[in-house]
């Protein structure tokens, strides 16, 4: 018996879609899993895969046909051993003829075969159909309000497993629609297989993600999707600070090998200045939770450290109470152990704000992604000599641009501006950090 190919539903709410193009011609041999055609909605393009084997006997809805109703007969496959011509003309009865003008519609067969009798080459579960998912996938989906009907399963027999739900969460797709609202069909994140198809086999090396890479991906997607970021940029003059740094380092006591007890960096000043600024504006030293604002007593400043294969953000605890030398030595220890991946969780978890410095690469200015549970992060550019106007005349000053990313749920614009101003004041008058 010929097999009918029906217009699939890409989502439970889809009623019609466009047949973008056929990837098989009439007469082509079809194997299970072959991609037959591409279907478009306003949000997504999906492939129709063959479930059965045979020969594509007839294309009923042509390339480029718009607004084809779900379950419309779009083609017919002749099963193995069947006469292709007979199959083409006897293609099962379609539920409703496509309205599109260009669509050549096969004459409905005399036999009124029930439309549900033929297998449907649908990618997605039809509305109300049973969704196969592992217990763990179901529970995670429930907690994250993920609509399993919109998740493509990659487990045995297309069963939805944990990784599929995690992928849907990371991609921000398939969020369950609020009850009552009409659910727009969300664009699906591209599957790994779809992405791989852009590149020739063997033209790339595939490096499996390690747990650090997975954590970075998960946390940053979460941060960008859940935190309403806004950005404030400020220029800070560094000349006074650089002079102070020189003086401080010159006075470092030396041990018997002539090695100084500390060597304070500009970054250490930045950590200290941010910590002190947060103390001066305690309303900005906060963490957003759904129930309440957590207003922190101390400034625990995270510092992004780049390490092979990723980055990690050790936290300088109570940085406002620590001297520059102490911060400097703590950071040296953190950086060395971070590179050896020897940091303990309590050394990089938590914190109230953070510093990300790309100045050493000559980056002038950038915006950083907030690292939850922080409410702010300061992105630091390179200190460089620039022409500035002083008292109406051009002058040369060493200037560093910084950008504060702020969680608007916790810190509003004016408060963020006050924080970055306080930071600028401290950087330009480093003696202020001492009092």
């Amino acid at each position, binding site marked *: 018996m010929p097999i009918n190919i029906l217009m699939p539903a890409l989502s439970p709410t889809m009623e019609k879609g466009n047949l973008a193009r056929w990837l098989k011609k009439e007469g082509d041999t079809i194997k299970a899993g072959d991609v037959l055609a591409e279907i478009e909605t306003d949000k997504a393009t999906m492939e129709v895969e063959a479930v059965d084997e045979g020969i594509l006997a007839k294309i009923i809805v042509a390339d480029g046909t718009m607004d084809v109703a779900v379950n419309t007969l779009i083609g017919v496959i002749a099963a193995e051993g069947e006469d292709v011509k007979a199959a083409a003309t006897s293609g099962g009865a379609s539920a409703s003829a496509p309205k599109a003008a260009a669509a050549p519609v096969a004459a409905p067969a005399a036999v009124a075969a029930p439309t549900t009798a033929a297998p449907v080459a649908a990618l997605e579960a039809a509305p109300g159909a049973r969704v196969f998912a*592992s217990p*763990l996938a179901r*529970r995670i989906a429930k*907690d994250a309000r993920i609509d399993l009907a919109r998740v493509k399963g990659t487990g045995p027999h297309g069963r939805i*497993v944990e990784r599929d739900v995690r992928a849907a969460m990371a991609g921000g797709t398939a969020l369950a629609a609020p009850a009552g609202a009409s659910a727009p069909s969300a664009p699906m994140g591209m599957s790994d297989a779809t992405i791989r198809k852009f590149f020739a086999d063997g033209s790339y090396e*595939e490096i*499996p993600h390690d747990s650090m890479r997975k954590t970075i991906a998960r946390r940053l997607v979460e941060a960008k999707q859940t935190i309403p970021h806004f950005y404030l940029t400020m220029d800070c003059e560094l000349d006074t600070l650089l002079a102070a740094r020189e003086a401080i380092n010159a006075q470092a006591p030396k041990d018997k090998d002539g090695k100084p007890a500390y060597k304070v960096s500009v970054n250490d000043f930045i950590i200290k200045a941010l910590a002190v600024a947060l103390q001066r504006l305690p309303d900005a030293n906060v963490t957003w939770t759904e129930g309440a604002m957590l207003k922190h007593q101390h400034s625990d400043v995270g510092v992004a450290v780049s390490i092979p294969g990723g980055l990690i953000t050790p936290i300088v605890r109570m940085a406002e109470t620590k001297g520059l030398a102490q911060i400097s030595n703590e950071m040296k220890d953190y950086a060395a152990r971070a590179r050896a991946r020897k940091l303990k*969780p309590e050394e990089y978890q938590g914190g109230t704000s953070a510093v990300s410095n790309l100045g050493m690469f000559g980056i002038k200015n950038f915006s950083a992604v907030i690292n939850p549970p922080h409410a702010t992060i300061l992105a630091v550019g390179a200190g460089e000599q620039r022409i500035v106007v002083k008292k109406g005349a051009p002058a040369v000053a060493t200037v560093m641009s910084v950008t504060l990313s702020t969680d608007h749920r916790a810190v509003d614009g004016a408060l963020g501006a006050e924080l970055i101003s306080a930071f600028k004041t401290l950087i330009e008058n480093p003696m202020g950090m001492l009092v």
Partner: protein
Amino acid sequence: MMATYDVLIIGSGPGGYVTAIRAAQLGLKTAIVEREHLGGICLNWGCIPTKALLRSAEIYHYAQHAQDYGLKIEGKVTFDPAAVVKRSRGVSQQLNGGVGFLLKKNKVDVIWGEAVIDKPGQVTVSATKKAAVQPQNPIPKGTLGEGVYQAKNIIVATGARPRVLPGIEPDGKLIWTYFEAMVPPEFPKSLIVMGSGAIGIEFASFYRTMGCDVTVVEVMPQVLPVEDAEIAGLARKRFEKAGIKILTSTKVSKVEKKANSVVCTLEDEKGNKSTLEAERLISAVGVVGNIENIGLEKLGIKTDRGCVVTDGLGRTNIPGIFAIGDVAGPPMLAHKAEHEGVICVEAIKGLHVHPIDKSMIPGCTYCHPQVASVGLTEAKAKEQGLSVKIGRFPFMGNGKAIALGEPDGLIKTIFDAKTGKLLGAHMIGAEVTELIQGYVVAMNLETTEEELIYAVFPHPTLSEMMHESVLDAYGRVIHT
């Protein structure tokens, strides 16, 4: 020019021969090269013959404790070392023949000799140079021999061999590896076992049961270093109760050989030195991949710490060349090798497969008491920042365990407190190596605590403890 194979596998250990059979099932023209014995280390010098030895030890142990079960043995229960070894070798021989039969049945060509990959697509096989440690069967009939063979896909499955510490090189007489430890002419009166991983502990357990004075020296702070610390702690107590002396955080820094004994210089973590003399020393400090002399260097195949670097589907950096099993890196376990091999050929065939998930590979140690585990240890789970729910159930609370006379042991389960995902399971006690698979299936099916709690476990069985451990994690345990 010989025929072109779809798949040619180098090495017929559990990884290699299972891969060959799966490839043949998929309709691929398949050959396998072996230089020594079908079935590899696992079947001839590893997993299987040690289980035969340990079974003799177990029955001897029961016979010694017959009166505990109301039985009386007239006269003294003794053993014949030669007969114990002979039984073990017989088991290996039977299975070794079985592998030959399976390969033949699946029409896999067996090529006898040593293989070198000349280039992708071509392998040269020459006569075996390595002297067999002890020949198993004669070379199976109908095998192909030396020559140049073409294959579209070449799978390296050459396995691993004992790691050798400099200055403590095994000599086959006084310093043993598992090869010699498995076929001793007689059992030594005293023995030092260097390394307390699965291999070391199993031999320690065997020789101790057979009356030998055994000392285990482990450089890490716990025995069975990969196991959950709580389980390893319980294991240590049981070993010590059985009379095994255990020195952790201690290394063997020097070995001096005498006529019929070795004198080991031991060094603890504080640098304190002491000496210990025993008739034999077993070096069981891990295994290293067999990556040499098969042409990998010349082809520029990436290796790392003695193993070939592969992706989750066995692919190396050179297209057409694959590696699976021990040579492709840890965990170096037969069942991991088999699974990796199957995935590798299924991917070659174009089937849709997922890379091996190393977090769900169980591990079993057949010491007395047995130890088995899968997934994360408690320490690892906490290291990953997961909040966990932990369940524990002691053998003492289980009717079947009491009836068996095996009241010592523990089943520990670790769940993700947020999702109910089973993160790990760790067991010690009688028959736990047979129990662990229940949790492995649960993990693979992604069950949560709920399905495990509502599943019915048969009474009276040891498996009821697996249920109770889950109940305990969620504050619902019945029998403690």
